[in-house]
Structure formats: structure tokens, C-alpha cells
């Protein structure tokens, strides 16, 4: 596109259903302890999926 460059490839909706598993870090336990923010947190399932894929690729 000439007038629009979208920075992300996924939307929230694509991750909304079946989520909320509760495995991810409580946001206040990260580095802040005073000011809340969730946009910089990681999805634990994604971390697990990536680790599994990485292990499969390396034959682990």
C-alpha cells in the first residue's frame, strides 16, 4: 500500500478466543511494581510454542 503501512500482522481478535489461560506473568511482577502496563508483556503460550518449534528444528 502507498498510503498505509501496518506495523503488526496480528490483531487482538485473532488471539481472543480460547485465551486467558493465566499462565503469563502478572504485569506488576515485571519491572515496575508501581505503574501498571500490559502492552509489553509476553504471551506464555506463544513462548511455549516458539520453544517447542525451536526444539523440533534443532532435533531436541
Amino acid at each position, binding site marked *: 500500500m502507498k498510503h498505509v503501512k501496518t506495523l503488526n500482522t496480528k490483531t487482538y481478535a485473532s488471539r481472543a478466543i480460547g485465551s486467558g489461560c493465566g499462565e503469563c*506473568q*502478572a504485569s506488576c511482577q515485571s519491572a515496575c511494581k508501581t505503574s501498571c502496563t500490559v502492552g509489553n508483556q509476553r504471551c506464555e503460550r506463544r513462548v511455549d510454542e516458539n520453544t517447542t518449534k525451536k526444539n523440533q528444528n534443532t532435533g531436541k
Partner: protein
Amino acid sequence: MVHTFRRLGSNIAVDTESGAVHVLSPVAYKMLSYIKPPLTQDMPVSLRYSLAKYDSSGVEEAYEELYSLYERGELFSDAIPLGDISKALSTRIKSMCLHVSHDCNMRCRYCFADCGGYVRERTLMSQKTGKRALDFLIEKSGGVRNLEVDFFGGEPLLNFDVVREITRYGRELEAKHGKNIRFTLTTNGSLLDDESIDFINAEMSNVVLSIDGRQQVNDYMRPFEDGSGSYETIIPKYKKLVERRGDGEYYVRGTFTRRNLDFATDVLHLVDLGFSAVSVEPVVLPQESEYSIRKEDLPVIIAEYEKLALEYIARAKAGRPFTFFHFIIDLDGGPCAIKRAKGCGSGCEYVAVTPDGSIYPCHQFAGEEKFKIGNIFDGVIDENIRNTFAHCNLIENPTCADCWAKYYCGGGCAANNFHMEGDIMKPYSIACELERARVEFALAIKAALAK
């Protein structure tokens, strides 16, 4: 809801509900101020007049592109159907702030914890209480595997032997119950030695190292009990810890106050000392405090975030990147929508346990009797208090529901809301304004680095 803004030379549109972030040409950016949903495939004729100063074929092209985003659900998208978030919150406890020490050897001027005393007398948590706290966490965690325990204070290393024993006990529980406990520790650094550094690096999945930045800033705000500055004591210890830590996660974490609104200099000072993961955050104190952040300070603070963002980009492009906690946003892999809507989980998934075994919604409520949820020994929880906190979420808070930044913020801090606005559901307005500005800069950094 679509929020548009210009930062760091980029025109940006955030589609709140889908989370899509678009960098726009000048004509597309301007066009967004004239169009509202529902969009039609054919461009409204009025746009030709409204955007007459732009080339007409460019106007048509921009509309086509915006319309295609709309068709894909990435512009003016509908709200995500999240259901009753309070139910998702109230069923389990998975994260615990363990106050192993209500004592501290520093006298930080802004300390919310009454310099470690937490309103009451100075005490250390016993080994027995700490172990029972972990048992309680396991009991209440339900099917969740990943649990978190943060050793907090006061200064937790004043009770290092107990920290070590609780950690050892936690490893036993992990194996027995099929859990993964992530221990973390927040320290003022003064008591670090080879033994504690090696223990922390082996056992703590993250460590938060408190320091405010430049020596004169740090030493004024973070003196020892005798009034002497702490900078020269802690810097070599932090350097040693980080050097030995390898790839392990850590943050050097500071607080800025009205006395150092030029806090970008403090962030960069810490980076220049060799610390690559930095978090420096605004103090939260009543307006009458000489150190408090006030509404009139906001333009200066936002200009400071801009200065920091420009340096962040410059260093990243020069191959010398650093991490600033509030500029991190993972646009593709971040948390799910439900996590974003329920925020920090204080009082529900997340609790704090004090040395006497009392349970509070989080560390910032410790010692406030009306928020005491229960105690770990009998395990009885005051469901009324817990329920109140379960309703602290984006769906049920009307102020948050209308905010474009809600899915980045998660609804803010209930403790800050209570202490500054008198109500856990009433967002602390200064924190909201700063959060929105930080998110704009974080997104603008993404745009600049994607060029």
C-alpha cells in the same frame, strides 16, 4: 475507536479494538479526521472538497486503502466480545509478592512503604511463614502451572537466609505439584555480596535493582539510615551482578520525582554505565509532597520522554540498543485480549503476603486493614474484597472503556487509584496521561525503526 497522533515524525492511527497500528501518509492521516464508520466502498464526494489541497488521485488511493483496512476489521473495528472478565479473575491465585522484610537500611524520601516499616513495626518474615505462604499459593493456584513469587521488602536481603530457604522449599513444591515457580527479587543493592549475587543469578528469573540514576539524584533520594548516599556502594555490586548474570533478565529500576524531571538524563546515565535494561518511573505521592508529579509538570515530562525516544532510536540504529521498560511493545506476540482487559490482577490472581502472614491485594496495600483479604494460616479469603478487585477491569470501568490506550495499559494501578483519587476504580489521571504519552512514543519508535 481510532486514535490518531503524530510523534517523532510519523502519522499514526491505532485501531483500539483490533490492536492494528497503521503508519499513514499525510493525506490518509488527514482523511481519518473526516470519516466515520460505517464506511462505504465509494468515497464520499465531500472528501474531495475537504482534502482539496491534496492531489485528487492520491485522495482516491488513500480512501481505497483505508476502506480495505475497514473491510479487514483493522479500522473502526467492533469491540472484542470478552464476556465477564470478573469471573476469569476471581478463581485462582498465581502470583505473590512476598514481603520477607518489613525493614530497610535505606531511608528513601519517596518510600510508599514507610521506609520498610509499612505503617507498622519493623519485622522480618519467618521461615515458617514463608513456607506456608508457598503452600497457600500452590493450594490456590488451581490448574495454572506457572507461578510467581517476588521477594520484596523493605529490603529482602536483610532476611537473606529465609529467602534462600523459601526458594529451596519452592523447588521441592515445584517437583511435587508439577508447577513452575518463577522467583524474582527486588533489592536496593546495598547488601549484595558474592554469595547473594550467585544465589540470585542461579535462582531468580528476574532481579530488579533499585537506583535512581545520576549520583546526585540517587544520593539525595536514596540515602542510608545515616544520611550518606548509596550510589557508590551499589554501583560496583550491580555491575558485578549483571556481569555474572549473562543473558539472565534484570532491570535497573529508578523513580523520578519533581526534583529530576530531566529523568531521560538519568536513564541514559544508567545505560552509559553498562546497564542495558532500565526502568525509570514517575513517583506516586500526594500532591502536597515536594516530590510529587503535578499536572503542570506533564508537558516537561512528555518532552523528556520524546528526548529519550529519539536517543532510543538513534542508539538502536547505531547498533547500540538498550531497553527502556515503558518503550517495549510487542505488536505481534503480546498478551491475549483477556489478559489486556484484566490488567494487573491485584487482589485476585495477584496478592501480597506480609511478615505476619496477612494477605493484601498487592504490595501497595500492605498494612491497610480495610484491604486485608485474609491470612495464609487459615487460608480463609474475604471474598467481598476480592470481588471488588475482580471488577477492576476494562470492561466494567467506564473511564477505561472509552480510552484508546486501554489494551496497552490494562486499566492501570488500583493502588495508585485509591491513594491518589480515593477509589480503586477511579483512574489516577496523571498516570493515565503519562501512560498514553508513553504508548504513543513506544508505537512511534516502532514506526521509526520500521522505516
